């Protein structure tokens, strides 16, 4: 397994980074928050034109046909800039769900529209603190109550990311044989979206009530296993997003402490500051290594992919939270101001720590998987 990026993946990284430097500046993020705008359609359009939205969608369905790792490379760059696009909701969550659970006809129906960016989609999975039984890690949590009957869906889903801008929702509901996945037109009668007042100002969420809304069940696959595969992928994709955010926050702190003088010397010359950032660098390097391994383990369908995905998520969550907090801390009072850029990561790190299930949930899942593993896997 190759744990370093190929030259082509490096070029993709440069391309995305260049685009985001132009289109997702901190000033543009502040403007979006002021305008209470949920996203940047201009950036979305640029990403569509570069083929980034269909990177991991097969060519037969209008995509570029690259792999999971290419999607990870894009996610990392978006995480670095806290880019205001529904990439994770539409391209990672919804498209990957359709790829895993849809029939060939269903993939042909929806994937081309997601690949082109013409339609935005999202994944409605949570019901407050209820989580799908992705793993034994959902210990003691309430089961999903949303149900499908006669082609109609009934129940309440919250929080749902990017629900206001999404036209389609992939919904995970409870069923006799475990969780089921279906696609719902979010503008149809019987769907009521209410915006939530959320902590992260750059990714809007909604509460959705389905009152016998028409839905189409994904018929390729269903049940615990497919939901687990989906969440493994999402954990790894998001780990890359978190790694990007961690690196951005770490170097923001490094740069600030280098240029700030205090008591006659650079703030960065104090050992308390150096050791703090060295510890974050260690967390970043380990998180990146674990995320790379997990992406490879999923691509190669290795038997240890579930614990590799949980490992990637836990390490990346810890690293991003620490980097976001210490970055603001090391900026001092300036870090607490709207004009400084620390708050973007400070809020986003919290969102990413909880939006796929908390550290508690994933630690449980990881330990259960390790406890039941027959033998350690070789790299």
């Amino acid at each position: 397994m190759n744990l370093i990026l190929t030259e082509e993946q490096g070029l993709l990284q440069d391309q995305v980074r260049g685009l985001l430097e132009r289109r997702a500046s901190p000033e543009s993020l502040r403007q979006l928050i002021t305008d209470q705008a949920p996203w940047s359609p201009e950036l979305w359009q640029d990403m569509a034109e570069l083929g980034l939205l269909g990177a991991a969608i097969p060519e037969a369905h209008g995509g570029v046909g690259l792999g999971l790792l290419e999607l990870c490379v894009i996610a990392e760059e978006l995480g670095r800039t806290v880019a205001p696009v529904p990439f994770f909701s539409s391209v990672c969550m919804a498209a990957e769900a359709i790829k895993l659970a849809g029939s060939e006809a269903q993939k042909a129906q929806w994937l081309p529209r997601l690949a082109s960016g013409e339609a935005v989609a999202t994944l409605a999975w949570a019901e407050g603190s209820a989580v799908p039984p992705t793993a034994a890690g959902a210990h003691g949590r309430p089961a999903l109550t949303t149900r499908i009957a006669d082609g109609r869906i009934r129940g309440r889903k919250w929080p749902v990311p990017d629900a206001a801008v999404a036209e389609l929702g992939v919904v995970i509901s409870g069923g006799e044989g475990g969780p089921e996945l279906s696609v719902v037109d979010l503008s149809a009668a019987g769907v009521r979206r209410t915006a939530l007042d959320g902590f992260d100002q750059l990714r809007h969420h909604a509460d959705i009530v389905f009152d016998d809304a028409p839905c189409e069940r994904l018929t390729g696959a269903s049940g615990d296993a497919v939901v687990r595969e989906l969440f493994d992928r999402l954990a790894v994709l998001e780990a890359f997003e978190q790694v990007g955010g961690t690196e951005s926050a770490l170097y923001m702190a490094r740069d600030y402490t280098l240029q700030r003088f205090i008591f006659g010397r650079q703030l960065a010359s104090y050992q308390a500051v150096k050791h703090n950032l060295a510890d974050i660098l260690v967390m970043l390097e380990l998180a990146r290594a674990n995320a790379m391994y997990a992406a490879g383990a999923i691509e190669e369908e290795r038997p240890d992919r579930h614990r590799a995905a949980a490992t990637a998520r836990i390490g990346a969550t810890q690293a991003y939270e620490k980097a976001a907090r210490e970055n603001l801390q090391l900026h001092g009072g300036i870090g607490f101001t709207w004009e400084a850029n620390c708050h973007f990561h400070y809020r986003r790190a919290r969102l990413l720590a909880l939006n796929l299930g908390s550290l508690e949930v994933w630690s449980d899942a990881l330990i259960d998987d390790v406890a039941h593993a027959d033998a350690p896997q070789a790299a």
Partner: protein
Amino acid sequence: MSTSSEDIKAYRERARAWLAENAAEYAEPREVSEEELVRRSKEWIRKKHDAGYSAIAEPVEAGGAGGTPEQAAAFAKEEARYHTPTFTGVSIGFAMAMEVIRRHGTPEQYRRFGTLTHRGDITWCQLFSEPAAGSDLAALRTRAVKAHSESEGDHWIVNGQKVWSSWAHHADWGILIARSDPTVPKHKGLTFFVVDMRSPGIEVRPIRQITGHSDFNETFLTDVVIPDSNRIGAEGEGWACAMTVLATERNQSRGSDNDARHDSVTSLVRKAAATPRGGGTALDSAAVRARLADWYVREQGLKNFAHRLRATTTAGGPPPATIPLMKLVSATLMQETNAFLMDVDEYEGLFSGAGQDRGEVFYQYLWSAAMRIAGGADEVLRNQLAERALGMPGEMRADKGVPFNELPH
């Protein structure tokens, strides 16, 4: 000089055949006494030397085989299939002593000590650290005073104390750094020597460690006479020589990190699952799970980081400045996980007996404390990461430009 891949293949086959004939007794690992290990190590080097397999890439006049680095690597891979005797004093000699003599010594010194070392005649120890000079090695106080006499010619009189010299009681020669001029700033007044460990005035005493064992020594030097011909490099070049040795040491330990075990947390999970607690097991505890998950993530991170490191360096890239994180993380992990092996059995975890021998856990927990200090203390490693990987400023120094004898101590 380069070697074509065809030649290398043939070379490797010849090496394999030679090893099959000459290393058969080392097919399985064997526990032997220290004295026996030293004897066997020297004997094995001699055997390789006579067959042209010792110091393969070094010149013949320095006791080597005059071959290529490719040949040396090929032989090393073949030899790695056996448990050939490797006394630490041999690797200190082959890697560190030879490197510093080759780079800073005279051609004559390199020929002389290369021949003795590569033929297995002598082994080496390192006389660097002192009671008040560890992380700050350049603070060392062992004095070397220049002298001349009819009988001794130009020579040096050395007085001082060195610590943490591994296996000094079995070594024939030592590499030594001492202060030759205390009136200049501390890095400038140092000079490097090789010293015969059987010289009058050298006394090696074992250090009793917290484990009860004695893996290291302290070495007292009292009016030890070192001929000026055993000075390596110029007067005042000692710090540069020491840096050469330490860089070699770091490169060596990096290789061994790759072989570290990466499944120890999995065994902790099994241990917790097998430990009764209330009506269930210790693994039912959310606090236990959180800690285990944290350690598992760090252990896998180390494994995958090492994997990435190999891929980077194999591709010809420079070794990244993040390498110090490996020991920083693994030493702390070792301390925390071995503490857990006691925690999980509560009070009883502090005692051997009742069918449970916890000696290995006690030993590993004690040893982890040394791991956090040796080869770069945690604090030094964090400085290195901040300065070399993140480009942050070096420490503000109170000793910069100040003559050594004016520094407070």
